[in-house]
């Protein structure tokens, strides 16, 4: 194990800001993409259903 304590782990030898800045934004990108995907899928289904109901009339 590399780290003596959690504080040391978060500090990353003084580079904590940069390391966590990188990992944080990557995590945000992934979460945003997945949420966006779910949203788009739901929107698309709703729109398709509406179009379908129009076409049936």
């Amino acid at each position, binding site marked *: 194990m590399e780290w003596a304590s959690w504080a040391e782990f978060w500090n990353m030898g003084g*580079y904590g800001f940069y*390391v966590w800045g990188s990992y944080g934004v*990557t995590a945000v990108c992934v979460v945003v993409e997945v949420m966006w*995907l779910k949203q788009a899928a739901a929107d*698309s289904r709703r729109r398709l259903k509406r179009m379908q109901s129009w076409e049936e009339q």
Partner: protein
Amino acid sequence: MNLYTYASPATFYHLAGRLIPWFAWAAGLLTVWGLYVSFFLAPTDFQQGEAYRIIFIHVPAAWMSMFIYLVMAFWGAIGLAFNTRLSFMLARALAPTGAMFTFVALWTGAWWGKPMWGAWWVWDARLTSELILLFLYVGIIALWAAIDDIRRSDRAGALLTLIGAINVPIIYFSVKWWNTLHQGASVSLTKAPSMAALMLQGMLILAFAAWFYTIAVALARVRRIILERERHTEWAKAILAETH
């Protein structure tokens, strides 16, 4: 009408639906394992200190950004050659994730550059090529968005991806050459750590995690595209009827 071209998206829609959870779980588990290796097993780099740990996402993201572009070019070429609609849809489903990884590679490159080079942005060969790759992704997505006719849109996007794919190695080479002539950054994000086996291991595990994540996300996206394009078929109508 050709049975093959019509039947194939329907089969694929259901297949993709069954595969997504597997890839998503694999991506999740690999991420946990990869992060554990990167943060708890891999030793500190004597030259760059702990800041080098950024490479565990930077390098896989950069790999994925180029790999996804090549896969898109592959599907585009298949689509143009054999007129298979599913391959165009796959290319389309991959692009946003490719652009996302390109952005991540740029972002992490900058956040590594600040402590190492003292500047957020340095015109280093890898970063510059990634930036141009991002422009290519944005161009392709913009071209798809600008053309209403699906058939034309698919094909135009595929042609642009292809000419880009021929150009990417040339761009990379020219930027690299330009960079050495102008004596750019001497510390490189990838070369500096004396690549311990554990570092390589962490990078590879996270690269596989990124790969499985890409597959899961692209499959989910391609399902939406298939459903939109096949909405007039009986099977798509049946699926839509089930949802509320």
